[in-house]
């Protein structure tokens, strides 16, 4: 074995230990699939985020359950609270219909101002329990990468607002996209239908 191979193995071992040591404190999700498959899984984006409890997570952390994903920011005054309300209602309906487990992942568009503490405060204000809701911050370039992956647009405006498309994305347990809806209740009901048929 050449030295580079040894270094790689050591790195993998280290990464393995690190991944075991981080925990959100919530119920552990189902084990990762043996590969980040299929090739259309969004969990192939291996960027690292921090959740509202300051745990380092990759998106693949949420594999094994259905995921509703949206991009918001805490200084957002109009659309984001509406999106959150829509998601809360959707989760209520989802759980009332006894569908397989769902987790909501909200990713901040505003890496400059949103911190894990700000997300924690936001979660408290909107009653978003950590066992169902994860709020993430990441580096600016990674936020852009995720927005592209989700087919969203966003742009920071001069007054501090962020113009952004208002999409809720439904991911299957292996991370591939099942569907999307504009963040309005009428469109979102279609996502529930998708879960039942997938």
């Amino acid at each position, binding site marked *: 074995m050449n030295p580079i191979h040894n270094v790689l193995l050591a790195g993998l071992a280290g990464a393995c230990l690190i991944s075991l040591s981080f925990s959100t404190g919530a119920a552990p999700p189902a084990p990762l699939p043996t590969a980040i498959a299929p090739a259309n899984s969004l969990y192939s984006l291996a960027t690292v985020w921090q959740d509202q409890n300051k745990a380092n997570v*990759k998106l693949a952390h949420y594999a094994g359950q259905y995921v509703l994903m949206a991009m918001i920011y805490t200084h957002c005054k109009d659309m984001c609270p509406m999106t959150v309300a829509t998601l809360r209602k959707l989760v209520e309906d989802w759980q009332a219909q006894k569908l397989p487990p769902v987790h909501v992942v909200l990713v901040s568009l505003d890496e400059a101002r949103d911190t894990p503490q700000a997300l924690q405060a936001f979660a408290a204000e909107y009653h978003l329990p950590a066992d169902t809701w994860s709020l993430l911050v990441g580096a600016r370039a990674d936020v852009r990468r995720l927005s592209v992956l989700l*087919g969203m647009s*966003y742009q920071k405006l001069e007054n501090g607002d962020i113009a952004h498309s*208002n999409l809720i994305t439904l991911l299957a347990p292996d991370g591939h996209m099942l569907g999307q809806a504009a963040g309005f209740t009428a469109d979102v009901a279609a996502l529930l239908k998708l879960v039942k048929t997938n």
Partner: protein
Amino acid sequence: MTSCLRRLTLALAASVSLANLDALAAANDTADKTSMVRIPGGLFTPFFPRDPQTDGALPSKARPVTVAAFLLDERPVSRREFAVFLAQYPQWRRGQALTVFVDAGYLRDGPDAAAPQTVDKDADLPVTQVSWFAADAYCAAQGKRLPSTDEWEYALADDGRNQAALQQQILTWYERPNSRLSPVTALPTNGYGVRGLAGAIWEWTEDFNSLTSGAEPRAVGSKDRNLFCGGGSLSARDAQDYAAFMRYSTRMSLQGSYTMSSLGFRCALDVTQ
């Protein structure tokens, strides 16, 4: 431990570790700047305004923004250069790159990773048929990044030099849909010393998805009214600038996995001093 290791090995093999590339980039302050041009900072008027528009008000035109000085690749990334990248990062080769990051046309006409060893007469042509994710990964691997739309457009504006000739060059290119590509080193330079921003290929920018799509005005997360058609054109910097409308509309029509035979890229870098 063994099964955990195996899961991770498979995961790493199958996934594209953009995070690792960024770590590389951050650690490697020795990005090759030799073929980069320093673009001095200055004021730039974006094509569409950045201020939120209030309902009912007449759309106002964009105010100038400051573009900080930055480094821009002198020329688009060539097939030869991309082939070197493919040799180092096999997960980006055609057939291995994941469908979430590239579409079916990705590198349909090469180059292969094997190309550096073989004579490829097209090696100096701009690489095209690359997705945003592939371009992003390439730039990160060089310790660089993609230029923002503002930076790219600012470089194209060339500090106001030769505007009429520039417009004509672009429009002539649009009229010849299948014009042959030229080697990157043969492309003409502008006043900054940058080659081929006009008349060669479309180029990816870091925030190509920054303008909200005209297709979903209801879904816009602020009162921003950057609708492309109709009323949106009233707020454009210059309603006569057909070439700019083409560029901005092309960008807005793209998704990150798309590839086109006429779409390539170049990289940029922050100026540290």
